[in-house]
């Protein structure tokens, strides 16, 4: 076979020009004129600069893409392909499929010091509130993502109603604290326990189901919980929800301005931000706990059994693994972490209503897990940052109105961009951001194996 001639620069330029031309042809009817209601009926406002900008953009993007591809091909040509299928393949993960140890520590370091950095950068605890609140929001989703990752990523059970356990955890804390006056630290384990119990209750009837059918039943379960919360007015307060939920205390010391308060006890001047910073570290600790438990379990027989279950249920059973118990533990554990996150949500908001636990939440959490690469812990964290932090970023893109005209609100295009990002991901990296799976045991040098070399498991 003759080696394919690598395209020269003129070829690439011609190709990019062609793309720009096609873009121009498409732009003429769609973009070039804008109709506006004028005094004498509709007026056509020409927008040729915008068309020019779009075409130039397409030209540059295509040029960049071709150049990158050409470089990649040139690099690949230097590496000999395995001559036979049975030859051992040193399937190193491609760049970008792994996260280096350094990046991991940087990520963790940033998470640990975010309140400090935000305070220094914005000049005071008060102005830093926006960033710390955003951090709390992101970490909540990181934790939910990691919890769901046990069920979906490791055990391979598609759960579309995860938000139900989030709701159970939130309502457990809200009801126990407002009715019996129990403190957050007593309710937190109870909420996890209760949500885990609900995970088992849901688990039992649906264990025989697989794939799509399981997804439909869990979806229904999520909706049932929400409808019960709305209609069981006596207990849950119905659609009005539960308000004035007691705040979290610093292990018994309340965040108040009086002399028993946190600030006075520790000799600080009172600042309402102390509570926010404390909440930030609380959710960070909870999320890290989820992560640690998951990482630890992956090395134990039960974690291996989850992964084997995801790969092939029948083979699992014929190896003597009780798939019923295995699925139940995955469901219960995932649900318990959802419950922890839920009670945190309740204590942070001080108010909960069924509105917060709709299907969209489940979808976002699931999207985080899928985008992150099923089963990858760090991938889930990155995806949570992108999915939750991304929309926030859009609020700060006001300068774009200079290009797209007055009244352009980037926030309105949030879902559109969201969909675009999803499609791009599925084309460019169909197995998620971090598709590589690290073996739970390694002999000698640890070596991840690129997901691109392996067919998808079924079951």
């Amino acid at each position, binding site marked *: 076979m003759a080696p394919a001639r690598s395209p020269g620069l003129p070829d690439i330029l011609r190709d990019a020009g062609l793309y720009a031309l096609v873009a121009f042809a498409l732009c003429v009817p769609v973009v070039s004129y804008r109709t506006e209601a004028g005094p004498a009926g509709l007026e056509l406002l020409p927008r040729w600069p915008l068309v020019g900008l779009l075409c130039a953009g397409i030209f540059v993007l295509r040029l960049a893409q071709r150049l990158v591809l050409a470089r990649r091909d040139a690099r690949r040509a230097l590496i000999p392909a395995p001559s036979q*299928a*049975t030859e*051992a*393949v040193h*399937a190193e993960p491609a760049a970008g499929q792994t996260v280096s140890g350094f990046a991991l520590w940087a990520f963790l370091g940033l998470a640990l010091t975010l309140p400090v950095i935000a305070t220094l950068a914005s000049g005071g605890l008060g102005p830093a509130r926006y960033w710390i609140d955003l951090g709390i929001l992101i970490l909540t989703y990181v934790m939910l993502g990691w919890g769901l990752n046990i069920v979906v990523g490791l055990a391979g059970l598609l759960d579309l109603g995860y938000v139900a356990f989030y709701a159970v955890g939130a309502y457990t804390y809200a009801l126990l604290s407002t009715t019996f006056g129990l403190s957050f630290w007593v309710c937190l384990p109870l909420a996890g326990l209760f949500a885990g119990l609900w995970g088992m209750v849901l688990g039992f009837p649906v264990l025989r189901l697989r794939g799509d059918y399981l997804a439909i039943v869990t979806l229904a379960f999520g909706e049932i919980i929400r409808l019960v919360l709305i209609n069981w007015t006596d207990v849950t307060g119905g659609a009005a929800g539960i308000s004035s939920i007691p705040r979290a205390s610093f292990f018994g010391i309340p965040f108040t301005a009086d002399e028993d308060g946190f600030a006075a006890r520790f000799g600080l001047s009172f600042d309402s931000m102390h509570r926010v910073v404390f909440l930030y570290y609380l959710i960070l600790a909870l999320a890290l706990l989820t992560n640690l438990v998951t990482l630890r379990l992956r090395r134990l*027989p039960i974690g*291996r*059994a989850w*992964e*084997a279950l995801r*790969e*092939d249920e*029948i*083979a*699992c*059973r*014929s*190896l*003597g*693994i*009780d*798939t019923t118990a295995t699925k139940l533990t995955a469901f219960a554990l995932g649900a318990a972490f959802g419950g922890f996150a839920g009670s945190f949500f309740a204590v942070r908001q001080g108010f909960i209503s069924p509105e917060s636990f709709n299907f969209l939440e489940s979808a976002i959490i699931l999207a985080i897990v899928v985008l992150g690469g099923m089963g990858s812990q760090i991938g889930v964290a990155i995806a949570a940052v992108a999915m939750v932090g991304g929309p926030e970023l859009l609020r700060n893109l006001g300068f774009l109105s200079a290009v797209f005209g007055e009244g352009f609100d980037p926030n309105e295009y949030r879902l559109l961009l969201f969909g675009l990002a999803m499609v791009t991901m599925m084309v460019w990296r169909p197995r998620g951001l971090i598709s590589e*799976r690290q*073996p*739970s*045991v*390694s*002999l*000698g040098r640890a*070596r991840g*194996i690129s*997901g691109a*070399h*392996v*067919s*998808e*498991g079924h079951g």
Partner: protein
Amino acid sequence: MSVAGINVLVEETRAIQARAGEPLLAIEDVSTYYGSVAALRGVDLTVGRGEIVTLIGANGAGKSTLMMTIFGAPRARSGTIRYAGEDITRLPTHRIARLGLAQSPEGRRVFPRMSVFENLQMGASLHGGRWFAQDLERVCALFPRLKERLQQRAGTMSGGEQQMLAIGRALMSRPTLLLLDEPSLGLAPLVVKGIFDAIRDLNRQDGMTIFLVEQNAYHALKLAHRGYVLVNGRVTMSGTGRQLLDDPAVKAAYLEGGHGAATTA
């Protein structure tokens, strides 16, 4: 020696013989259905301790169904399956596996995204890793190819290697009875020979009882002590491997054509 003494001796010998004669696996009048379609109709079959027994038959005869029925999925609608004297017909699959049966299922069914090492660990999960190092050594000695690839993902290996892994994974549970479903399916003749040699070693050296389901009738019957022929869910013929190999009906149905190719390979 007194007559009474001799009588006791005779009794004891008979008892030992009876115990030895009791089959490890006894399938009696088993019928299995997929919905209303009968896949097995009253199958009788026994596998004695230390034997290699093979089941041959055409596509769709019900070979794999019988294999899976032994493991309780699908469950037999009638008849009984006894393993070491215990009725396992109604036991769930994982409980059956815990009694000392292991299978290398049809289509290999290795865990594709897990490494070879992890696959073998899964096989040993019944014992909680008590004999893991020792058993790993044994499997690696039997299939040196696996040893080279312990860190590789199972899904990236060739079909023959995956077959070796499926058998190795089954062996990791230290089975008394090993069920193999078409270990030669889709493999090159040289690889098939390697796998059949390994099966023979397991039986001769370790005394493992093996129930082998095969379409490759010539190789299977040459290897096996006894064989059964399954046609449309019924056992139509049984005998020693030699007898079946020489049987004109078996020859006509399963060996002609395939035979010549197999001997030259």
